[in-house]
């Protein structure tokens, strides 16, 4: 009734191919974006911004990046946190050693360096496939871990191995309050999501999906495996690098090398599995899930009257997480995004049952 496409005829190809062909979707998206920029800063508490919304947004960027590599191009990667680390450490070194640089430039350079490293570690994907590739990406992860922990230059000779950041200077505006940080991250998320959506709908995105579905057939129609896979690694690592820089500067403030270790890689992978592989909106869902679950686990036992130690809570978190992974893969391998799509389908014919 509300969500029908009645009367919305497309008379040109560009109308048919637009991002949101259904008018109701367009209105919803405009409303969502407007309220994100205007309403949320006014209504949300500093705590909500700092502990929930900002990490959610930054993790979404990382999730979109990994989704491009794993969900769209079919290359399993367990090293995404390593590339996040590259972005974070490059950003740290740039702000430290070249303080005149605007933070936007720093972000671009962080993403760019992560992309270059990503291409380097992506080269094995031409010979190695499937789970062998997963193990090869672990090599990248552990090697990068070691580089950042041991090579003193990266941590500016810090004795403990941890680094801390200065406030962000961007276009003459000092980003210090949670609201400022939120708006910065929101802006980046909007831009990068739009870019990712455009890419996945373009011939490059189709080449990625062709490589994922059947790489021999893809080669037969002219897709160069080299170009497809390395471009996926490059774009994915770019996103990871930007996410890492933001994670370190905006969310953490200061960090040790363990912050970008293998557990972060696995977290990003779980985000996209639960959210939905090969789906933009799924990356958002997955990131939200990952941020909300620990919070729930923290609050609910207290509310129900059960007292759990912090260690026990983290164990419960692991159990629920692991259990949900298996559950999702068994019931809905396409994740929350598929449930969302099914919901929308039902809405289109509501109030009729079919």
């Amino acid at each position, binding site marked *: 009734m509300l969500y029908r496409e009645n009367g919305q005829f497309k008379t040109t190809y560009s109308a048919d191919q637009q991002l949101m062909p259904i008018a109701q979707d367009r209105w919803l998206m405009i409303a969502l974006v407007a309220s994100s920029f205007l309403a949320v800063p006014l209504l949300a508490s500093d705590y909500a911004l700092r502990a929930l919304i900002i990490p959610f947004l930054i993790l979404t960027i990382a999730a979109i990046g990994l989704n491009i590599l794993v969900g769209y191009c079919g290359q399993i990667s367990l090293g995404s946190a390593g590339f996040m680390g590259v972005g974070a450490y490059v950003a740290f070194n740039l702000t430290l050693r070249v303080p005149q640089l605007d933070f936007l430039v720093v972000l671009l350079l962080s993403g760019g360096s992560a992309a270059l490293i990503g291409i380097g570690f992506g080269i094995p994907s031409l010979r190695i*496939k499937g789970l062998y590739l997963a193990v090869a990406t672990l090599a990248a992860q552990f090697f990068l871990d070691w580089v950042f922990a041991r090579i003193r230059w990266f941590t500016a000779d810090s004795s403990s191995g941890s680094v801390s950041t200065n406030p962000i200077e961007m276009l003459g505006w000092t980003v210090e309050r949670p609201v400022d940080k939120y708006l910065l991250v929101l802006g980046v998320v909007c831009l990068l999501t739009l870019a990712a959506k455009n890419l996945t709908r373009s011939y490059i995105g189709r080449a990625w999906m062709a490589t994922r579905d059947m790489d021999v057939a893809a080669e037969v129609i002219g897709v160069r495996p080299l170009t497809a896979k390395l471009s996926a690694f490059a774009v994915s690592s770019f996103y990871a690098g930007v996410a890492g820089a933001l994670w370190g500067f905006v969310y953490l403030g200061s960090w040790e090398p363990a912050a970008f270790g293998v557990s972060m890689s696995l977290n990003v992978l779980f985000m996209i599995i639960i959210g939905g592989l090969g789906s933009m909106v799924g990356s958002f869902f997955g990131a939200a899930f990952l941020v909300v679950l620990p919070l729930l686990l923290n609050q609910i036992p207290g509310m129900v009257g059960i007292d759990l130690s912090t260690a026990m809570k983290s*164990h419960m978190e692991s159990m629920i997480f692991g259990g949900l992974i298996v559950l999702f893969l068994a019931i809905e391998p396409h994740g929350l995004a598929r449930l969302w799509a099914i919901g929308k389908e039902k809405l289109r014919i509501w109030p009729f049952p079919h």
Partner: protein
Amino acid sequence: MPLAIGRLRRHWPVVLLAMLLVVGLVAPLAGGAATSGFFLEVLLGGLMAGVLYSLVALGFVLIYKASGVFNFAQGAMVLFAALATARLAEQFPLPLAVVMALGLMIGFAWLVERLVLRPLVNQSAATLLMATLGISIFLEGFGQAVWGNDIYRIDLGLPKDPMIVGARLFDGGILISREDLVAASVVAALVLALSLFFQKTATGRALRAVADDHLAAQSIGIPLNRIWVIVWSVAGFVALVAGLVWGSKLGVQFSLSQVALKALPVAILGGLTSIPGAIVGGLIVGVGEKFADVFLGQALARWFNLEGGGIEQWFAYVLVLAFLLVRPEGLFGERHIDRV
């Protein structure tokens, strides 16, 4: 004779590595007794560590060989089995505790088959891999929630003091850990038993059939579900043995599951479908790591102004990565031919 030469040519990486090993053994001997003593110590230490890696890698290979699933949860299984034994041994005599732990692992195998493998039976390898990741996380949390997350001791009654060998040949002699020697013999016995099991028994044959094509295996009447429970139980048994050996050496704690992360490249280096491959891979990685740490680590620390150490973090993985580029199916793995 020609058959042997043909065999050698096919397994050229192994031959190359063996030759490198021999050269490496002989060269320092020319350099004098003192250096070669140290060298031998590092070598033996590496071999022992390698044997322990092989033990965990065996579990990977078993499950992959028989069900085509790459079991990321093997490390968590090792931890769980070790935790169970350690805590049960506080209440019951050790042999009984071990048997009870084995029972738990069989129960776990049954649960995995029922709740994970059966629903995901026709999914892609990537999906199954991620499912085992989920199992791994679950098991780590569950194990620690039930058994606690302190460090626990397992006392196998193994002598802890090292042996000193060849005090006359080398300066001060070479240190060999008795514990490691026992571990090595256990692994050798296990490998023999498992190889025989796979090659000679009917169940072993059924396991190999299932790994090759489970639809075809089903259509000749092999009970898929029971086979999977058997496989995961055997892998659980291997995990238990690994847990006991590692646990008595390092103490039973959470970091035990990280050890399994090392065993991953070992299994792949050996070629995931080969039991002897897991052993050879383990030895190569163990020795390689030790040597890299001792020799390469010093060099790198000097050149790059490093904090020092830590090469073991990534050496095994990078080694395997380099190897896979040359030979994507591992040392003894089977070549995969794509039919179009």
